[in-house]
């Protein structure tokens, strides 16, 4: 036995030190490792950038996959003094109504959805920036620059909407609890400082960006260019009150021959598939042209909610696609536009349509045949059979989908992010505030193209405000401008009175079509309308943010 003892003990000792650690490395199937993908190559930088744009496009159209809403368009337009949230009846798609009538609380669906969507875009940008900032190649630097500008634009929109949102400049880990930018213990920034940061980011990145090659370059509006960087920098400076800096940033853009206003006869095309990438566009989310190939990026509600409520009507114009009638035009706005531009101006015709006579008789119907106007006035193939809730006698036409815009039930139009007219107006505003007459030419350019009766003779802030109210109708500017300018008096009655449109031919059995409005007061007894000190900002989402992150201070009043 003894002779075996030592070899045995040695053998046993060997058994105990068996190391099988190598067997514990089992590679995952069907995926690429993080380090393997973000490897610094140009190819991976481009791949990461595509993912950023895809993330941006899907989140601007339908954040978090929520098909029913399109908060980017809804949230920044509905609180304005030019529209009603309408629909089939009061409470229909109330996520829109509560924004328009200032009835929303911290858990409002549109607010939460947009807030989440914006930060998802930032995440996509930070993946590019974190992984390629240190890579010394032209392609990588250009990709990083595009990501920085997108990230700056999102932060600017967040600052406009929420005042002091968290500044997120890196990919965060799962345990992160970010602060309002002004409360951040490491790098506190006021609202204005955040906006200036956005502008500086764009100007720093500008050098590495591509430039739109010409007015006809349609590709150059589907990605971020020098032009868009200038736009974001200028807009951020204007919102920060840095007007000289804004002028400097915007001048190369407004004086560029790569952008221009489309001629008057094509001015509505910019918002439709036929003119989606025209000379006016600086940057658009290039949604896929087919809903069937990529539903995730296409907008459903854009069409459905804002299309005219044609199923309450006996017939409809041939060119437009009906919907659920979710948006109405305020009479005071419509009348001011008509007064300013003139009934026959191309801009009035492109922006809004009067039910009688335009929608009833002027626009072609498939059933027109050889009907004369007199025939049409008594015809059963048109008119409002029941009622149109939330509609005045003017219907919004600018962004109502044409048949060509649609693929099945989905709008395939990209969501417009920046247009040269806004740049002109921002530049004009900066000039007006600083007493610089250089802005007048851009104001006039817009007015001339609009065919407006009104033509400015001096670049004053009042002239800019007036022009911007009409030109940027339904382009997400109004509420933010009203708040910035302190012009919120026209918002305090939002929701107190909602018009409902009737056709006497159908409802009252009159011999001819006659359109009239009956006022509704669906919110009687409720607190509605803009409240100073509260509605200048959206709330931080209650359940999704405030409840789980003690570092975020809620905005006042919520």
């Amino acid at each position: 036995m003894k002779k075996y003892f030592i070899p045995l003990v040695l053998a046993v000792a060997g058994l105990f030190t068996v190391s099988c650690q190598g067997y514990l490395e089992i590679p995952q199937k069907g995926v690429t490792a993080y380090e393997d993908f973000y490897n610094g190559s140009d190819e991976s930088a481009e791949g990461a950038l595509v993912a950023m744009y895809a993330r941006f496009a899907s989140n601007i159209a339908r954040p978090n996959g929520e098909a029913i809403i399109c908060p980017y368009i809804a949230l920044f337009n509905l609180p304005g003094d030019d529209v009603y949230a309408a629909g089939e009846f009061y409470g229909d798609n109330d996520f829109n109504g509560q924004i328009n009538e200032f009835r929303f609380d911290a858990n409002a669906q549109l607010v939460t959805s947009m807030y989440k969507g914006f930060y998802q875009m930032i995440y996509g940008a930070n993946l590019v920036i974190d992984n390629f900032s240190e890579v010394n190649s032209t392609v990588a630097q250009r990709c990083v620059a595009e990501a920085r500008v997108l990230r700056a634009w999102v932060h600017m929109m967040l600052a406009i909407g929420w005042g002091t949102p968290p500044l997120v400049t890196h990919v965060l880990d799962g345990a992160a609890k970010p602060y309002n930018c002004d409360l951040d213990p490491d790098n506190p920034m006021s609202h204005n400082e955040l906006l200036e940061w956005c502008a500086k980011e764009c100007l720093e990145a500008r050098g590495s960006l591509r430039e739109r090659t010409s007015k006809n370059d349609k590709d150059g509006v589907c990605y971020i260019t020098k032009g868009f960087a200038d736009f974001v920098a200028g807009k951020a400076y204007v919102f920060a009150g840095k007007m000289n800096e804004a002028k400097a940033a915007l001048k190369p853009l407004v004086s560029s021959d790569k952008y221009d206003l489309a001629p008057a006869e094509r001015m509505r095309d910019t918002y439709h598939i036929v003119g989606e990438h025209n000379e006016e566009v600086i940057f658009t989310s290039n949604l896929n042209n087919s809903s069937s190939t990529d539903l995730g990026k296409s907008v459903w509600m854009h069409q459905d909610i804002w299309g005219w409520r044609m199923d309450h009507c006996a017939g409809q114009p041939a060119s437009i696609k009906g919907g659920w009638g979710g948006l109405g035009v305020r009479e005071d706005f419509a009348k001011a536009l008509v007064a300013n531009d003139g009934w026959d101006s191309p801009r009035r015709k492109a922006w809004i349509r009067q039910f009688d006579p335009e929608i009833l008789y002027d626009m072609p119907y498939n059933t027109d045949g050889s009907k004369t106007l007199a025939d049409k006035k008594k015809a059963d193939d048109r008119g409002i059979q029941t009622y149109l809730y939330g509609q005045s006698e003017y219907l919004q036409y600018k962004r109502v989908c044409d048949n060509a815009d649609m693929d099945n039930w989905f709008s395939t139009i990209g969501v417009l992010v920046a247009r040269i007219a806004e740049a002109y107006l921002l530049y004009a505003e900066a000039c007006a505030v600083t007493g610089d007459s250089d802005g007048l030419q851009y104001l006039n350019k817009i007015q001339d193209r609009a065919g407006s009766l009104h033509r400015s003779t001096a670049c004053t802030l009042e002239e800019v405000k007036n022009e911007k109210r009409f030109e940027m109708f339904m382009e997400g500017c109004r509420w933010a401008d009203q708040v910035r300018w302190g012009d919120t008096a026209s918002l305090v009655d939002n929701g107190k009175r909602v018009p409902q449109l009737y056709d006497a031919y159908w409802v009252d059995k009159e011999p001819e079509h006659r359109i009239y409005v009956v006022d509704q007061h669906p919110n009687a007894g409720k607190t509605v309308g803009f409240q100073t000190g509260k509605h200048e900002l959206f709330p931080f989402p209650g359940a999704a943010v405030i409840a789980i992150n003690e570092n975020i201070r809620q905005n006042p009043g919520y």
Partner: protein
Amino acid sequence: MLKQLIARAATIVSIFAVVLLGSGNAFAQNQAISGKVLDAGGQPVIGAAVMVPGTTNGATTDLNGNFSLRVAPRTILEVSCIGYTTIRVSAANGMVVTLEDDTEMLEETVVIGYGVQKKSDLTGSVASVRSDDLQNRSTSDAAAALQGKAAGVQILNYSGAPGQGAAIRVRGYSSNSGNIGPLLIVDGLKVDNIQYLDPSMIESMEILKDAASAAIYGAEAGNGVVLITTKTGASNNGRSSITYDGKVTIQSLAHLPGVMNAEQFIDFKRMQDYPIDDMLANNGYSTNPIDTDWSKALFENGIAQQHALTFQGGNNNGHFFVSLNYLNNNGIVVGDKDVYTRLSTQINADYNIKKWLQVGTNNSIEKWSTKSVSHMSETNSVMMAVIQNDPLTPVYYDKVEQMPTHMQLVYNNTPGESAFEKYNGPDLITQAPDGRWYAVSRYSDNDHGSPLIQLARNNQTNEGMTLRGSLYANLMPVKGLTITSRFGYRLSYSNGHNYSTPYWANTMAKATEYSISANANTGLYYQWENFANYNFNLGKNAFTVMAGMSFTHNKSDNVNGSATGPDILSGYEPNFRYLDYVNSNSDTKKTIRNLPGESAQLSYFGRITWSYDNRYSLQANFRADAFDSSKLSAQNRWGYFPSFSAGWTISNEPFFKNNVGRSAVSFLKIRASWGQNGNINVLNNYPYATTVSYNSANYEYGPTAEKSYGSQPNGLPNPNLKWETSQQIDVGLDARFFNNRLTLGVDWYNKDTKDLLVSINPVPEIGVSSTTVNGGNVNNQGLEVELGWKDTVGDFKYSINANFSTLTNKVTYLDPNISRILYGSYYVNQLRTAFEANYPIWYMYGYQFDGIAQEEIRDAAGNVTHKPGDPILHDFTGDNVIGEADKTYIGKGIPDYTYGVTINLEWKGLDFTLFGTGVGGNDIFPVLYRTDRPYVNTLEYYHANSWSPKNTNARFPNPAAIKNDTQFWASSANIFDGSYFKIKQIQLGYTLPSNITKKILINTLRVYVSLDDFFTFTSYPGLDPETATTTNAQQLGVDLGTYPTTRKVVFGLNVNF
């Protein structure tokens, strides 16, 4: 085996004692006598001490059991040997002394993981179930055999379907995941299930309940550990034997489902305000009344037979055990569509090659096949169909004219008219073997048409083979040291085939396409373990030190193919129903799949036990576990699991011994333990990893540009993700009284499990909408009592063993990013199960039923909100609207207590066993009422207990008011008490006298008859409260129509040669 070692050691000691102490003087005065000491089986007892009490005069038996010594005649001699009861006899020359086995001693050792320990030295909480308790049971599943036998161990019999495995829960429910079963170890081999193991092959089952005992299995022990030792032949005391055990079981439906008959059904439909009378008139019911009992159409008596043949033998050098076991269980559903067959073999052997080397092997070979029917589902479930099919529909149609119009249109292939445009014809109408057609309801379309159609369509078979086993060598180079190297393996393959044809029953139960699929799965698992046990004594201090390592590796592979389409095969005769004959039509959709899997684990572990003078014991365990990269990141893969326990045997203290008689208190020990365990099963498929979904995103850089593809991470990296960890404190007491006749074991435990994996929505600024974090804690607490009494009165032996355990289960923490996790959804009601802090795990989340309105109730504005007979659901939000926010706790599926009682009686050759088990304090939520289908049947209970103007004091509201109310049907009104007591076994056996059987060379011959699962005491009106649940851990207590436990009459035979 240990017993023999101890016996041998004792022999040596006693020989020394005799030699050293023996007095030469005594020899001369007394005469020499010689004798023999035998055991109960007539075999010689080696090394027994034969002593004159109070003297040093004595002798030790030799290899043949013989002894001789000098004593005066009629001197009283004391004969003792470890493992046997000591007796005193008077001396006589040629005397033969028979020693009885010391049963207390037999129970002394328990398996504790990489070693054994004397039960009296145990410091943790280990439940031990012996082969006696597992014999002659009608269940073929080792897990099911545990039911009611150990406190703190709950067995969930999910259904009575043949081949359905039972689930084991040790000390509560510790995880929000489905992975809450214990680690299963058979003869040292980690196994995936123990369904293959027939209870008759088992020597003992040990359940390591407390964390200190289980800690030796570390990261896998968080839900307890079950250690199973199969028989080796060693317990036969070296005798060779052949045993045959056979039984035939006749099984039937335990109690008929309480569904409505035709009269009740019609009355109920009238109460519900459905136009049943018009329907009856349209269908000519009055001239041809029908009252079908669907349970009679679907169920019959099922036969199960089981045969086991065992050969065992051994000697001082080794042991051999072979058992062959065959089972065929054809369940109670008509025909041969629910069958489980199993052929299994257990081959165990060990041999002492050298004094210092023992080698051995344990192997099991299992071949199984199952055919099963669908149940536990809202749709396409045969069991649900029995409950829901209306009694007004016949089982068969004899003529085409009897069919409903829609069926005739299909049958007659009426173009353009029938619901099927392309595929029509008589083949689509399912025919019974006798040529008639299975009838479907004229009153209502439902998801299954007829249970018999679903049964006929079901052509699913699964079969496979599994080899499990281990080879080991024990090296004993010096005294007290045993070094073990053990290699274990599992090899498995399984094959599944499925084939179904287009059919038409009604608009909801139909198929337009053929489908065929086949799959093949193989698995290879092996483990290699090396460990050493060293026992040594220093004075009164006894030490055991154990250290070891283990490596496991698991690989699986599979191939899966299927085809569906309107015309998929080159022929449809049975011999064409294989994937080889799938055609290449363009509308034949084919899928192929394959994804091999792999996992590995490396562990080091150790244990130190110290005991002093059989009075004080301490034990410390430690295990370090590392898992492969599919579970944890490299920097986080190691986990460390310590435990400590201590015991104090008060009855061995001098002050106790001197003051308390053994006949009053025979044994008293208190013990306490603390330990930490993990649950690694929740981590799978690289949950921590930052991986990139390659080319999963796309964007077009221009209106006409091609798509560009991009990549991004598929989630948030979480390299800190870790397993669930449990910490448990256990305090226990073991006592025996009245000369060991009364035994008592009491344990209290408190188990905190933390770091449950929870999917949360992190703060949105991160930019990732959901991620998995360690974000939940659960607490389980309970008291366990085991009480036993055994005694002998003349020829009459009896014993009663009872166990009782309580359980309090509560979620103590959930990540603040989420208020509750909801599970499950039913389209007939709004019930969910929920996981939420301060509630039991997966409680039932629905509406609180405040009773029935007996008179009109109006709101502040004067509008009528409730008519008489309407249900009142509690409006927690106070907004006058009942909605999701008004849901609350309405019940739980976890019992407050479980218990079991076993009574054994023996008188001469007769033996009798009564065994029952029960649970209490749990709720059952039946999802057996359909709000969406007006003319389906449901429980008669709902009819008998419904409000009507004449019966206002009813449990359920006016049927008309709730007929489509998915909120009411998710309310506490529909919660039933799930308590039950079930007599699992009443067995009467008779063993023929051995003097008769010996003549035909049979040692023992026993016949028995048994009534199993025969009586159930419950108030639950559904099929079977025991199986009224789904197999989902997240849906405990939700009854979706489950195959009930069957009532069994068993005839059995045990023969031993």
